[in-house]
């Protein structure tokens, strides 16, 4: 049997789900000067990180079906 890909709701999570919704008046921090650049790594590091992720989370990698769904229908032309 295929392992479940999500966690079964428990009585505790039901409490969270049924909790009253919070106010939408948030006190959010000012992020206008937050850095926009994610870290840039070497190609060697990128290769190794990809291998690690593939080893550690094999079921998290897109399946062939999911990859195929992402293909563009309209041909690219210059």
């Amino acid at each position, binding site marked *: 049997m295929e392992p479940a890909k999500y966690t079964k709701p428990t009585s505790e999570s039901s409490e969270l789900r049924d909790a009253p919704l919070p106010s939408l008046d948030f006190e959010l921090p000012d992020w206008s000067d937050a850095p926009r650049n994610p*870290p840039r790594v070497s190609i060697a590091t*990128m290769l190794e*990180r990809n291998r690690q992720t593939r080893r550690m989370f094999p079921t998290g990698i897109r399946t*062939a079906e999911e990859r195929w769904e992402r293909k*563009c229908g309209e041909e690219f032309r*210059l």
Partner: protein
Amino acid sequence: MELKDFIELGEQEPQLRFMVIGGWAVAAHGHTRSTYDVDFMVSKADREAWRIRVDEAGLACFSEQEQFAQFTQSDGDGFDLMFTAPETFEQMWPLSKEYDFNGTVARVPCLDHMLALKLHAIKQALPHRTSQDMEDVELMIIRNDVDLKSARYKELFLKYGTREIYETYLRIL
């Protein structure tokens, strides 16, 4: 097989021309991120030669249509071929750049053509990929100091994307 092995496939005699596109080409243009497949753009004129070579390498064809062939292997990166019209490929090839992928050199489309490819994909609003394509474009713009307000990039964004996409980037960058 992984990136260098696929590049070596194209380098076998007789050499078959290709440009690395997708996540590895985005990395070549400054934005390194996770990617678990290797994408090549090839001319439709070389379609059969590529199919034979990939078959000989032992990859299984998952699916194929006019513009794409997708291959899988039991362990390792997926491999996708994007078949493009010969005239488009011949326009892109001379402007493509050599890039050293950790000791294995291959060509990637020039920055403007990479942006055009990504905008073309974003324009189609495909589920599950728009957010990543948007981030790729954003980071390629930032990393390469692209002047979005210039007439050249406005024209490029409007030609391959939409006004809405262009104005979104103007607003967030």
